[in-house]
């Protein structure tokens, strides 16, 4: 187990007036340079967890530590890519990213800021559209700008709230490839919400499975047993792909509901489906399942 970079301890959130907490007893760690995806049904509080990590919302109970210091508010150390891109429509692509860059480095000259902006716009392949307004861009391009903006401030950790949810499958694929490439280049620590099982398998080193709310929990942590050099083209030919995928789908379809109301363990089980090229498609019944303390 690598040294923990981000530590989430006993996190819980009860909205005012609600009888039961949306989630409680959420525990997990993220190591530096790790890509972690969280999957769960709507209403289990994934976005709330991400907002707590970002410092935009406060939890009702529990703590979040980043690099041994408690997260007590928003910080430039954690970049956020919002679900609805959240670009400022009155600014161009250049202006939107420059706004973030100037926030991180207020002392920089205009030329320095501009050079930095151009570098990150080129990174997401939008150099030709740098002086366009968001309204002139397609959905995929807007989301790329959002990603470039988050990367441009060189955060220690990146939080992505279902960034590709509104995109069509083809666009989604290309941006996933881009994200994978950029993360490999920058060794970025990422926490990402997704609804898409294949997206999680492609991108994540570990996948957190959340049970249904109320009183949702991170019920299981699934290790991605495939090597990190994954590509969309070859992913589904690997022997570990189907055991992994079946495990995730089984959890979402069959098991997550039974684990609501706090029936999931507070300390999540870590599993590695398909690790030993297991022919059994139901890894929950195989000896590869192991508990971590």
């Amino acid at each position, binding site marked *: 187990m690598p040294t923990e970079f981000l530590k989430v301890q006993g996190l819980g959130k009860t909205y005012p007036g609600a009888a039961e907490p949306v989630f409680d007893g959420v525990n997990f760690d993220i190591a530096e340079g790790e890509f972690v995806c969280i999957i769960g049904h709507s209403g289990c509080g994934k976005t709330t967890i991400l907002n707590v990590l*970002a*410092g*935009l919302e406060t939890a009702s109970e529990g703590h979040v530590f980043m690099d041994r210091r408690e997260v007590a508010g*928003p*910080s*430039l150390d*954690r*970049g*956020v890519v*919002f679900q*609805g891109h*959240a670009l*400022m*429509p*009155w*600014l161009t692509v250049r202006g939107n990213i420059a*706004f*973030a860059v100037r*926030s*991180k480095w207020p002392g920089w000259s205009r030329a320095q800021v501009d050079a930095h902006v151009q570098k990150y716009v080129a990174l997401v392949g939008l150099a030709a559209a740098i002086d366009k*307004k*968001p*309204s002139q861009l397609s959905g995929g391009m807007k989301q790329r700008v959002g990603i470039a903006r988050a990367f441009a*401030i060189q955060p220690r950790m990146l939080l992505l709230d279902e960034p590709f949810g509104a995109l069509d499958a083809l666009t989604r694929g290309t941006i996933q490839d881009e994200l994978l490439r950029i993360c490999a280049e920058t060794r970025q620590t990422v926490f990402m919400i997704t609804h898409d099982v294949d997206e999680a398998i492609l991108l994540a080193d570990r996948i957190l499975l959340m049970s249904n709310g109320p009183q949702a929990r991170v019920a299981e942590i699934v290790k991605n047993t495939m090597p990190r050099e994954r590509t969309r083209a070859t992913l589904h030919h690997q022997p570990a792909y189907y055991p992994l995928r079946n495990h995730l789908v089984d959890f979402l379809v069959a098991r997550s509901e039974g684990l609501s109301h706090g029936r999931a363990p507070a300390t999540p089980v870590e599993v590695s489906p398909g690790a030993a090229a297991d022919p059994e498609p139901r890894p929950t019944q195989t000896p590869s399942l192991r508990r971590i303390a």
Partner: protein
Amino acid sequence: MKTWMRGDGPRAALLSLLLLALLLGVWHLATVGTAAPAAAPAATNLTPEQIEYLKLMGKDPAAEAGPVARSGFPTLAQMGQVMWQHLQSPFYDNGPNDKGLGLQLLHSLSRVALGYLLAAAVAIPLGFVIGMSPLLYRALDPFIQVLKPISPLAWMPLALYTIKDSSVSGIFVIFICSLWPMLINTAFGVASVRRDWLNVARTLEVSPLRRAFEVILPAAAPTILTGMRISMGIAWLVIVAAEMLVGGTGIGYFVWNEWNNLSLPNVIVAILVIGVVGMALDLMFARLQKAVTYAD
């Protein structure tokens, strides 16, 4: 008027011209038709004293003998003549009761500008604060709701009593009538800035001042400008009435003075000028509004 026509195409422009021609035609027929040389014999058997008396009473026998309509409503020819006179020397000043139309307009415009700018200087920062704080929004709402529907002219006696200066009172009335739409729209615009943009600013640890000027102001600018445009429209409506009350100078006073002179051509010219200037002001704000509006 040109920009308006450009937008609607040449057919609309043609229709407008036709309507104008129709209007002028009706005017011409209505005023020329009633011109009758009926009073002609009267002038001859009057003594000079009697003629003088009649002139003082506004019943000039010589004029009544002419081609003027009995109703006293000016013909198109008279209108053209008066308009031409005003256009030739808009800035003459022959004492307090005889100033050029341009000069009067400048007086009115400067009053509107001063009152309006003062109102903007109060309403926009205050609206910002109210919009940012739901508590203040609710606390001040009853005051705004009561003060807003008061006709600005109702403040005039209070203003005259406390300020003791008619010209400044006029400015105050413009101030008070421009205040509300700007205040309400600014507060509304600021309060409804999208949460996402504020969250972006928060995650970037943007300072409150930068957040106000670089996020909230541009986000709320279209709504604020709408309020400013409404305020300008109201201010231009109110200045005419206010100047009729306080007198002295200004286009409103000019209209009232010409009514006392029974000079309907001058009144009509002033009405047209008020309309054209109001339209120009509105167009100016429409341009500004277009400049700050963003497509989402």
